[in-house]
C-alpha cells in the first residue's frame, strides 16, 4: 500500500557549504556530555555520582515519571562533573572517556522472535527508548501506549542536511533488525519515506511500508509525511524515529552493545572544508570543529539552521542531532536595510527582494533577524510554505492566548515545532513560531496529557 507524497507548498533554503560526501574520523572527544534538556518534558533522576565508573550503555539518569526509562552513557568512562542550575536543576553530566571502550552487554536478540513486551523492556533497559518520539506533543514516546503507526523519514530536506543514503550505507542489517522490532510495537504499519530518486537502504526492507517523497522542504519532515499518509486524530498516538537512531537500535539487537557512534555532517559557510565526520553522541563540539572553521565570528548550531540549537565549542553535540551547521553571526547593522534592494538573502516575496530571480543560487545567510519583532500583520504568506491542512496563523494565535479547545480543534495534535520552522523563516513580523508551538504543546501536555 505504498503511497507517494508530493509536496507543493514549501521552500528549499539553499545555503552554501554543503558537506562533501567524504567521511573522516573526528578527533576522539575526551569528555562526553549528556544534557537532560535534550529530552523535552523529562524530569531526570541521577543514577550516578561524581566518580562513578560506567560502561557504554549503562544508565546515567532515568525518567522520574517512569523509572524504567533509562538514559545511557554514550561511552565507558568516569563521571567527572555534574552541573546544576537554579533549584538544583540538572543541566549536564560530563563523562570522561576511557582510552579503551567497554560496552555493557545487553545480549544478542533475534528481533523476529521477540514479543512486544520483550522489545519494549529491552529498549527501555538499554537506553534506546528515548530515540522513539511520539505525536501528539513531540516528546519521548510513552511506553504504556500502543501507537497507531510508526513513521520514519529517511529523506532529509532541511537546509544542508546530512544525506541519509550516504550515512546509512552498509547499515541494511541493522535497519532491518530495528524495523522488524518496531513493527511489533504498533497495531498499524511502519511507514518509511524515502526521496523520490534516492538510493535508499530502506528500499526492500521487510515489515515496512515504503513511500516516495518529492517536493521542497518540509517534504522530509516526518510531520509532513504523517499529515499526507494518515494524520493524527484526537486520541491517537503515532511514534517517530530517525534513521540514524534506528541504526543504534539495530546494532543493539544484533550485537548486544549500545554503540553511540554516528556519522554527522559538518556543514555551512563557516566551515572551511565541509564534510562528514564519525563521532559519538555527546561528543564535545570542539573535537569535531577545531581547526576546521573559517576565521569569522560564527554561530555553531547542533542540528540544522531551522531547528538546531546554538552551542559553543565547549558544549556537546545534541542527543538527536546528526549534523553541525556553522553560519556567520549577523550582529551588525545594515544601512537602510529595510528599503535597499536585496540580492544576498532569501525571500518569498518580490518586494525589492530578488532571490526569485535566482532559483538555484546558494545563499550565505547569517543569523540576523532582518527586522524587528511585530504583531501579526501580513496574511497568506505562511500558507505558501506550509503543506499541512491546518491554518498556521490561527493555530499560533490560539497558542498565544492559550485556548485549549481551539488549539485542539485547529489540529494541535498533529504538529511539532519543526513544522513551523518555515513559517517562522518567512514571518514578516519575526514572531518566534517554534517557541509558541512548543509552549502550546507543553500546555496541552500538562492540562490534557
Amino acid at each position, binding site marked *: 500500500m505504498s503511497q507517494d507524497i508530493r509536496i507543493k507548498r514549501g521552500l528549499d533554503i539553499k545555503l552554501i557549504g554543503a558537506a562533501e560526501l567524504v567521511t573522516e574520523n573526528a578527533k576522539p572527544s575526551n569528555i562526553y556530555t549528556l544534557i537532560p534538556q535534550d529530552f523535552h518534558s523529562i524530569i531526570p533522576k541521577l543514577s550516578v555520582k561524581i566518580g562513578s565508573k560506567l560502561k557504554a550503555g549503562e544508565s546515567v539518569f532515568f525518567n522520574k515519571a517512569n523509572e524504567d526509562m533509562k538514559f545511557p552513557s554514550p561511552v565507558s568512562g568516569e563521571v567527572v562533573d555534574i552541573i546544576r542550575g537554579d533549584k538544583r536543576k540538572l543541566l549536564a553530566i560530563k563523562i570522561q572517556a576511557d582510552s579503551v571502550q567497554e560496552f555493557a552487554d545487553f545480549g544478542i536478540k533475534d528481533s523476529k522472535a521477540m514479543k512486544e513486551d520483550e522489545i519494549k523492556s529491552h529498549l527501555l533497559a538499554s537506553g534506546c527508548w528515548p530515540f522513539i518520539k511520539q505525536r501528539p506533543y513531540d516528546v519521548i514516546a510513552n511506553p504504556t501506549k500502543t501507537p497507531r503507526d510508526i513513521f520514519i523519514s529517511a529523506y532529509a530536506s532541511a537546509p544542508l542536511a546530512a544525506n541519509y543514503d550516504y550515512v546509512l550505507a552498509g547499515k541494511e542489517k541493522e535497519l532491518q533488525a530495528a524495523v522488524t522490532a518496531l513493527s511489533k510495537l504498533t497495531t498499524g504499519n511502519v511507514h518509511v519515506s524515502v526521496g523520490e530518486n534516492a538510493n535508499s537502504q530502506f528500499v526492500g526492507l521487510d515489515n515496512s511500508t515504503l513511500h516516495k517523497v518529492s517536493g521542497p522542504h518540509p517534504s522530509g519532515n516526518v510531520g509532513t509525511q504523517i499529515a499526507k499518509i494518515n494524520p493524527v486524530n484526537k486520541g491517537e498516538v503515532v511514534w517517530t524515529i530517525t534513521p540514524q537512531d534506528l541504526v543504534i537500535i539495530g546494532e543493539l539487537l544484533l550485537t548486544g552493545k549500545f554503540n553511540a557512534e554516528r556519522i554527522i555532517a559538518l556543514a555551512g559557510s563557516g566551515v572551511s572544508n565541509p564534510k562528514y565526520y564519525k563521532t559519538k553522541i555527546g561528543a564535545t563540539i570542539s573535537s569535531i570543529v577545531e581547526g576546521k572553521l573559517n576565521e569569522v565570528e560564527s554561530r555553531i548550531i547542533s542540528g540544522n539552521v531551522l531547528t538546531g540549537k546554538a552551542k559553543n565549542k565547549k558544549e556537546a553535540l545534541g542527543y538527536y542531532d546528526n549534523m553541525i551547521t556553522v553560519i556567520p553571526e549577523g550582529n551588525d547593522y545594515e544601512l537602510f536595510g529595510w528599503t535597499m534592494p536585496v540580492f544576498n538573502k532569501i525571500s518569498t516575496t518580490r518586494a525589492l527582494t530578488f532571490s526569485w530571480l535566482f532559483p538555484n543560487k546558494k545563499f550565505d545567510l547569517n543569523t540576523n533577524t532582518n527586522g524587528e519583532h511585530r504583531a*501579526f500583520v501580513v496574511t497568506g504568506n505562511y500558507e505558501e510554505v506550509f503543506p499541512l491542512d491546518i491554518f498556521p496563523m490561527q493555530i499560533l494565535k490560539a497558542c498565544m492566548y492559550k485556548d485549549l479547545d481551539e488549539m485542539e480543534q485547529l489540529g494541535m495534535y498533529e504538529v511539532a515545532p519543526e513544522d513551523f520552522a518555515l513559517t517562522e*523563516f518567512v514571518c514578516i513580523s519575526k514572531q518566534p513560531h517554534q517557541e509558541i508551538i512548543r509552549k502550546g504543546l507543553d500546555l496541552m501536555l500538562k492540562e490534557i496529557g
Partner: protein
Amino acid sequence: MGLKEKLHNIKEKGKGKKWLPAFAAFHTFLYTPNDTTQSGGHVRGADDLKRTMNTVVLALIPCLIFGIFNTGFQHYAAIGEAVGFLSMDALLIGLWKVLPLVVVSYVVGLGVEFIFAIIKGHEVEEGYLVTGMLVPLIVPVDIPLWMLSVAVIFGVVIGKEVFGGTGMNILNPALTIRAFLFFAYPTWMSGDKVWVTGAVERAKDIAEGANLDAISGETILGGLAQGNPVTHSLSDMFFGFIPGSVGETSTFLILLAGLFLIFSKIGSWRIMLSAVLGAIAMGFIFNGVVAAQWITEGSKFYALMSTEYWHHLLIGGFAFGVVFMATDPVTASQTNKGKWIYGFLIGFLSIMIRVFNPAYPEGVMLAILLMNVFAPTIDHYVVQGNVKRRLKRLKVKTA
C-alpha cells in the same frame, strides 16, 4: 568612530529609558537593527514589516504625483484657463495644495504613534507609513488642514491604538479617518464644490457679491446622481483627468500599482480580483434591471443604474479602494478562501451603495468598512470548515 558605532552606543545607553522607542524609530529607519535570532530557526527571510509597508508606499507614489498635477489641471480647467496637464502652473497649484495634506497627515499621525509608543514602551510600528500616505490621497483637496488633523488623531487613536496598535485594529485606519471626516464635516466631503480646488472659495466670493463665474467641482458620480450627463471621455476616466479625491482618479496608475503589488506578493490578488468580479456582477444586475425596464428614466437611480457595468470600475474611488484599502491584511479576511468572499462582497456592495445612496454617490469606503467588520465572521466560518473536516476524519475512524 563612525555614525554606526555612535548610534549603537546611544542605543545601549538608552536601554530601559523612556525615550528609547523614539530614538529607535529613527535608528531603525537608518539602520536595520543588529538583532540576531534567539529562539527557533537561526536564519530568517529578508522581509520585515518596514519593507512590506515601504513597498505599498512605493506603489502609491505615482498616484500622489499624478494627483498633484491633476489638482492644478482641474483647477485651471474649471476656471476656463487651459493649461497643459504637466505644466508648471498645474504643478505649482498642486504642490501648494497637496503637500500640506501629506505633511499634516504624517506629522500628526506619526506624532500620535510616537506618543503611544513612548507611553506603552514599545517600538514605533510601521502601520502609519502606509496610512499616512493613503490619507492625503483619499480626501478632497480643499479640506481644511485642522479638520484633517482632528480626523487623523481620531482615526489613529480610536481606529487603531485603542485596539493595541498595528495588527490589532478592526477597521482600516485610513478609511476610519475618511469616514470621520465624512460624517463630521459632510459639507467638506461631498457635494459639487469640494473636488476642485478653489471652487468653495469662489462660491463664497460669489455669495458675498463678487461678479465671477461659479466653478463646478463635481465628480462624475456626483453628476450622475443628479442625473446630469457625463461630460468626460472614457479615456479621461481611465487615465484620471477627472475631478475627485487627490489620488483616486487615475485608474490606469492604480491598475499598474495593483499589478506591482500582486507581483511583489504584498497585495492579495484574491481580494483585488474578487472585488472586481463582485462589482461587475452588481453592475450587470443593475444594467439588467434597466434593460428589463423595471425602472423608468424618471427614477433618480436611473442614471447610475444605466451606467455600463464596466464604467463603474473606472469612476469614483472604486479602483483605489480595492487595490490599496480592501487589501489591508490586518482588516481583511485572513484566510485565502475568506479573501474571495470578502473581496467579492466589497465589490458587490460598493456598486450597490453607490447607486442607492444619492446623497453621497460613492460606496467603496462604506463597503470596505462594512466588510472589515464582517471579515472575522467570514474567517470564522472558513476555519470552522477546517475544524469540521478534522472532526469528520475522526468520526470515520471511530464509526
